[in-house]
């Protein structure tokens, strides 16, 4: 049962294609398992279609159509291969780095993404805290396995956490199984994350 969803503005940015890639990966991971958000997304895309219709046209060069028809037999590009079987889409096709320890009971695996946000998988042992930091910029976390809790509630598989500014309670992995999340942020960089791990866990 998914009970935590992205905000309207985040979903709007996703629908418009303006969410930085790492954040879009986290949002897509949630949307893939959340029929409610797919429904919301399709509504926003329909708004995009209506807006596209209403845009004043900007003429192409005269031979544009002929040049395009000359390419009519080109095959469509293929999907990138599955490189991470076992992870839900789109993570299964996203290149990932190696696992890095970031302190006692936490490991980090960066995702290869371009743009103004970084992201990756984080695996946290039960009872350990997850990183959270950004008061500057958007941060999204989607739970893949296990669960964590913070001041705003409990997050289980499929749930997406989009903390508003000023969160008092750091998220802590629930008892039981380790908590695996995909996380992305516009705020702190990976170096900062490692620094956070060092401060937090004294490594």
């Amino acid at each position, binding site marked *: 049962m998914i009970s935590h969803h992205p905000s*309207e*503005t985040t979903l*709007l*940015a996703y*629908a*418009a*294609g*303006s969410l930085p*890639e790492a954040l*879009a*990966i986290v949002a*897509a*991971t949630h*949307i*893939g*398992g959340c*029929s409610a958000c*797919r*429904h919301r*997304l*399709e*509504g*926003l*895309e*329909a*708004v*995009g*279609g*209506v*807006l*596209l*219709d*209403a*845009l*004043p*046209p*900007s*003429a*192409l*060069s005269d031979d*544009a*159509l002929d040049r*395009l*028809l000359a*390419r*009519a*037999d*080109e*095959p*469509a*590009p*293929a*999907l*990138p291969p599955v490189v991470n079987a076992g992870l*839900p*889409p*789109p993570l299964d096709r*996203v290149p990932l780095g190696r696992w890095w320890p970031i302190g006692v009971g936490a490991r980090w695996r960066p995702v290869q993404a*371009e*743009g103004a946000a970084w992201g990756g998988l984080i695996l946290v042992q039960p009872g350990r805290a997850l990183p959270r930091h950004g008061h500057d910029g958007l941060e999204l976390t989607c739970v893949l396995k296990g669960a964590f809790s913070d001041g705003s509630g409990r997050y289980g598989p499929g749930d997406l956490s989009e903390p508003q500014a000023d969160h008092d309670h750091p998220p802590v992995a629930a008892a039981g199984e380790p908590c695996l999340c995909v996380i992305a942020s516009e705020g702190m960089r990976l170096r900062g994350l490692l620094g956070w791990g060092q401060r937090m866990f004294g490594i």
Partner: protein
Amino acid sequence: MRRKGVDHPIWHVIHPHPNHVRGSVNATAPASGASDTRPAPASPAFGVAGLVLPFRRRISPPGMTADTPASDDHAALIQAIAQRRDRLAFAALFRFFAPRVKAWMLRGGASPVAAEELAQETMLAVWQKAALFDPARAGASTWIFTIARNQRIDSLRRERHPATLLPDPVDEPEEPVQADRVLAMAQQESRIRVAMAALPAEQAEVIRKAFFEDKVHAEIEKELGIPLGTVKSRLRLAMNRLRAALGDVT
């Protein structure tokens, strides 16, 4: 070169999944006239076999330019491409959408050359993927919007990999599309137009900027010379109104 389904980006929400292959669809262009059939946010449970009806609604949307053809015509054109590689149908689709996609890319900051190339790549993808279009899941404009958006995302990467990170509905049971559901989607589509036209100008502006200019809130605020936080609240107000128009078609 029918590549039905083969290269289908499995993440695309609104594209029919290869499993969702439809039965026969009326692919000849229906009568002209403004109509409104783009799809609607559809709940994930559609997209299935055989029951796609040709859209027949005729609603004149406000604020449309004179050259806005019927959107069910657009859907029929895409189907004609899918079924018989119809170049005339493609040319008609191209004349309507390519200049609009180019206009969007220009607004998004692309150079005229790059904007034209993106419009071309978008229309090429429309040609290549026409067989994946399912009018019960998305209307022509919405489908082309998502293709253009994805082309744009890919073009902004240094490394091109064809990827748009929209997951495919996998957790939904497949259900037949109901005729009244198709109708409800068509009505919903026209409600979006009406709601957009009824938005206060400043709210419509932030929505357009959010979709087509890739602006973050702070940039829009700077550009419009309005106080911090105003864009977000305008966006919220606008989205509330649009959400009300979107309603639920389930």
